[in-house]
């Protein structure tokens, strides 16, 4: 077998090219780190669920029921002392379940509740909520229509409402985190059926989760491959092009994956008509009526 080998491939090239400066590759490293951390989170989530602890010992059905009751109670509570007490309960449960309390608290309170505060803070102004001044932001001598917005202050009542909203969102997240981290994914999906969610629906969600993790693995390899071949500066235009091609590639991969999954299901006697009929039957049957958590607990204790 005759092979053509170009001359330049016979010699090593020790030159360092000028285009090595500037941090084009950093966005690839950052992307890789975030993708890897999601993967590690997925792996460690199962680790917490597998270890021994108070909530891990409880059946997933009870935990789902408990979580729903807590979420409903939270949405009805208006007293921040009660809310703080509930937060205390969530901390105690985390410790009893041997979860990483500090890390979880940072994650829980650092994102969504903070965004909730930023978004709802304007509602604490006297322009939206009437009430007694807590903090005056602007006071000037303005006449005319602008005088309506003079002074501008944060009202005590508005601030209380924002605080309650902040506490509610943080504690709700804590409750959901407790449920998700102490329950195996398979158990969680299975138990969703206990509250009346049709099996076909949980089946689809479970499959989606499984294939999302698979796509995540593909994304990690894709970025690793790019990192290995990124030997110079990437302009913003090139970075945007890489991002675009990544999205296109993942879309193409997910399309291919879904059609292969469908073929695999068909090969095992799956028929969309039968699925639709069963699903429709499920929707019309009593089992589709979502059970209240109370019903669920009574049902389980029988």
């Amino acid at each position: 077998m005759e092979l053509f080998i170009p001359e330049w491939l016979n010699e090593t090239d020790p030159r360092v090219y000028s285009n090595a400066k500037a941090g084009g590759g950093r966005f690839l490293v950052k992307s890789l780190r975030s993708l890897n951390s999601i993967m590690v989170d997925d792996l460690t989530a199962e680790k917490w669920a597998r270890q021994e602890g108070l909530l891990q010992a409880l059946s997933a059905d009870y935990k789902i029921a408990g979580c729903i009751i807590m979420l409903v109670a939270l949405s009805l509570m208006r007293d921040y002392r009660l809310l703080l007490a509930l937060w205390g309960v969530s901390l105690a449960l985390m410790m009893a379940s041997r979860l990483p309390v500090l890390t979880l608290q940072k994650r829980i309170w650092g994102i969504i509740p903070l965004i909730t505060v930023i978004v709802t803070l304007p509602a604490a102004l006297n322009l939206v909520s009437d009430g007694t001044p807590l903090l005056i932001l602007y006071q000037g001598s303005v006449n005319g229509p602008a005088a309506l917005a003079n002074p501008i202050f944060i009202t005590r009542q508005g601030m209380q409402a924002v605080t309650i909203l902040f506490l509610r969102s943080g504690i709700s997240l804590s409750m959901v985190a407790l449920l998700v981290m102490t329950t195996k994914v398979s158990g969680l999906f299975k138990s969703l059926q206990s509250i009346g969610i049709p099996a076909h629906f949980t089946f689809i969600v479970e499959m989606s989760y499984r294939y999302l993790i698979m796509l995540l693995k593909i994304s990690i390899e894709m970025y690793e491959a790019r990192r290995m071949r990124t030997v110079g500066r990437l302009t913003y235009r090139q970075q945007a092009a890489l991002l675009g091609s990544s999205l296109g590639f993942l879309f193409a991969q997910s399309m291919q994956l879904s059609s292969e999954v469908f073929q695999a299901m068909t090969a095992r006697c799956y028929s969309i008509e039968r699925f639709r009929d069963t699903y429709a039957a499920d929707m019309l049957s009593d089992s589709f009526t979502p059970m209240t958590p109370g019903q669920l607990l009574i049902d389980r204790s029988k």
Partner: protein
Amino acid sequence: MKSNVFELRQAAYAHQPGHNIFESISFDIAAGESVAVLGANGSGKSTLLKILCGLLHPQAGSLKVFGETISEELLEDDAFSQRFHRRVGFIFQSSDVQLFNNRVEDEIAFGPSQLGLPEREVRRRTADMLKMLDIEHLKERPPYRLSGGEKRKVALAAVLILNPEALILDEPGAGLDPKTQRWLTHLLLELNRRGRTIVLSTHNLEMAHTVTQRSLVLSEDHRLVFDGATPQVLSDRALLSQVNLIDEFTHEHDEKSHIHLYTHG
């Protein structure tokens, strides 16, 4: 005496805390060597290769490549990263993840274009690669529409154009037809003959036998159980069976007993 390209010392690696893949693995690979990493599925071959090319970093122990200790921080230095990635090429098991441009020609030209080489030089090298890998007729095609063997050729061209001194290949023969496998074997032998260091992971004992002089064998519990000449390990049926690289099956034909050896691949 040839200098070492890779020096791995007591490396430990875990994908997640508490679940070690490797606990303490050490070996050297000298310049110009061709080495096969053999092991059953899940033995850690791909992880080991990714450690060698700086995509994964051992949590304990050290890795030196071309005499420099590799760390995550060092690879964040762009000048070093450029030098490292030019000298160490990695071919992934799935060529799909490696190809991200819209045309084969652009895919191959991606590396040298970033180096700031003159446009004419980039075009010349790209044309050479297209010719070397016999894929000139594919240059206008989108990589994702190619067959498995064609994709593998494009992925090889895209890495070889950077003229790496060491080439790491993860399961290079997987999914290739016999003709393309033979072509690939020939190419790897030729590159090694011209001084390139070749490290490849494979289940394919025939490819290991033809291409490599030395083998590293990983057991199913991720330990390095053999480091020596490839012909020696390939004749050690007990070891190959122990690490689940071959399996024996005895049955009878016309009252005669036959033993079949099964290998991965």
